[in-house]
């Protein structure tokens, strides 16, 4: 397990990115690691782009700079493209985990912009990073019992990569403590996300083994 990790979380206001970031910070702290979590409040919450940085293991500054994200956790595919291709947060060493379910921006509905061709765009992402993993996180959240559990699916996906400096069980414990009322749905979502990515990883590994 690495001691230091920079997780760049990007999504759309209302998707629960802040809660996911905060949970990672809480669990890291409980594990005995230093954690710095940057948040965005105010206007950005109203359907806007929400970027959060989670820096574990003794970083001081809250912002994740260009090429500095070890992991990009994208709650929406266009936002994955934004984080990697437009904002350049990833490097050749980065992992990118993204939800595949699009949320059309209002600028697209108003015909002020065009939603990009995801297939072509993700080919470009794949060229630029170490690893790209796509998952149907929105569908998995619904399967778990609530679309609001999307952030837990994404945390599960992250836990499956084994990049986190603490074991998944500690994250599950954090989820349980964070919102006991929703623990059942949240844990189901977490496990669905984790299983989906674990399976994707197993499939890609198999031929070389």
């Amino acid at each position, binding site marked *: 397990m690495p001691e230091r990790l920079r997780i760049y979380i990007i999504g759309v206001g209302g998707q629960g990115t802040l809660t996911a970031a905060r949970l990672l910070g809480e669990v890291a702290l409980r594990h005995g690691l230093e954690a710095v979590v940057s*948040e965005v409040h105010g206007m950005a919450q109203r359907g806007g782009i929400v970027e959060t940085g989670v820096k574990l293991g003794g970083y001081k500054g809250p912002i994740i700079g260009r090429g500095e994200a070890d992991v990009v956790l994208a709650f929406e595919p266009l936002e994955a493209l934004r984080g990697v291709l437009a904002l350049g947060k990833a490097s050749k060493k980065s992992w990118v985990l993204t939800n595949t379910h699009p949320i059309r921006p209002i600028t697209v509905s108003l015909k002020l912009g065009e939603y990009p061709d995801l297939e072509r765009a993700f080919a470009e992402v794949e060229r630029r990073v170490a690893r790209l993993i796509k998952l149907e996180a929105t569908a998995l959240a619904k399967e778990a019992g609530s679309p609001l559990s999307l952030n837990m699916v994404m945390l599960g996906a992250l836990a499956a990569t084994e990049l986190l400096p603490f074991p998944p069980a500690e994250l599950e414990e954090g989820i349980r403590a964070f919102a006991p009322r929703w623990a059942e749905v949240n844990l189901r979502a977490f496990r669905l996300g984790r299983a989906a990515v674990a399976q994707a990883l197993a499939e890609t590994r198999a031929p070389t083994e």
Partner: protein
Amino acid sequence: MPQLLARKRLLLGNEALAWGALEAGLGFATTYPGTPASEIGDTLARLANEVGIYFEYSVNEKVALELAAAAAASGVRALVAMKHVGLNVAADAFISTLYTGTRAGLLVVTADDPSMHSSQNEQDNRYYAYLAGAPLLEPSDPKEAYAMAKAAFPLSEELDLPVLLRTTTRVAHTRAGVEVGELPKPRERKVQGHFAKDPFRFVIVPSVARRAHKLLLERQKRAEALSESSPFNSVLGEGEELGIVTSGVSYAYVCDAIDELGIWERVRVLKLGMSHPLPRGLISQFLREVPRVLVVEELEPLLEMALRAQAQELGLKVQIYGKGVGGLSRLYEYDPDRVRSALARVLSLEEKEAEQERDEPSPWERLPDRPPVLCPGCPHRASYYALKLALGKEAENTIFTTDIGCYTLGLLPPLSMADHLLCMGSSVGTAGGFAKATDQRVIAFIGDSTLFHAGLPAIVNAVHHGHKFLVVVLDNRTTAMTGHQPHPGLDFSALGPAEPVPIERLLSGCGVRKIHVIDPEDLHGALLAFQEALKESERELTVVISRHPCVLLGQEG
């Protein structure tokens, strides 16, 4: 909700700051909410009854500061928090408090917003410390926000001066592990004071002020001595090639960049946490120890100018670099890239690949944006829609003045009903100006909390001077954008039940004769009222209060 136990917690800078103040024995706190300061007040509001302090969301920052100053003059430790532009509103009172001085500790918190994440400007409020002569503390992270809030009260009492504590968005809205201590028991907390009269100190007429200014300069000398020995001002590292002088969150980026570039043995860092008055002794020693100095500070080059002046006074040949090097400019917040590039430039290091890539134009940089929009079901949408129907084609020649709140988003298409905005309350004042100076129809939009904050004097002015325009009060029964804080129009405050000040009676008391109250969800009723109000507003100041609770009220938690 945080428990009242001592332990390490993942706290937001704002929460840590509030906690530090509570630990220091805070007895009285006020605020007007504004990003990125809001969670200071919200944290205190949540804990106020439990820990037994007085807390209120005041009507505006000036009143908030006046209340806190009075509490501190009565011997109760007091805090007032606001966003950076809030200090403009409170500036008149603030500057006088440096002349009168304080008795119990008085902590004035300003939360600046470099990059304007949610503000109309990125003014650097460190200038206020210079302007007013206030001791200034600048935390670089939540841990320091906690420690400095705690230390501010004894510092304020030692100097008899209010202390200005300046955070920025990246300190206020960053979470980090903070080791907090125990809160004092309620009976150990002084929440009730006694004001010992001293009119020739606290009544700031010219003869008093002349003496007070002299006293302030003497107190600043003492403050400078305290700055020399302040634990918040320190030198890190022993490198002899380059000195780095920094304050606030820039310090964090500097440390990360030095780590990453692996240059700790080449540099030393002067970190200034108490950055006004500057520790001139510490600085002159630092300037003598290195051949070159790089100043890393967001926004204005205040430290840089002070260092240049001091080097000149000392006749030193030290090279001082700052704004203009690498990514360092007076614009926008700093980030790891900007700071690292400046350090690399000054030390002639190879820059990282990522730095060079930035200049490559890429088609992927033009992805569709997601501007913030009014929420689905937001009553403001209905108000805008009904008024748009009532105006028809006339909307094109109508000047829409707008104000600070969620409804500023009426700017964006398809609503496109915002033409002018300066600051809190400006919709009504500027509407008067447009009504007099043009022959166009003028409509002002203002929210309920904003009307109380700074709209009322402009209403009185418009009535008295006969300015003819329409005011639409978008009354969603809360201060929505900053997180649903109460305001004087409601029957509750942060601490419990309160006397409501009904907007229609208030306006009627100001002399407004044409007042309509509508529910924007009733489209037909709203349309009729707007049609009538538009006609009336050609003859006199007319107000439509469009009242419907924010769709998010009661949905939190």
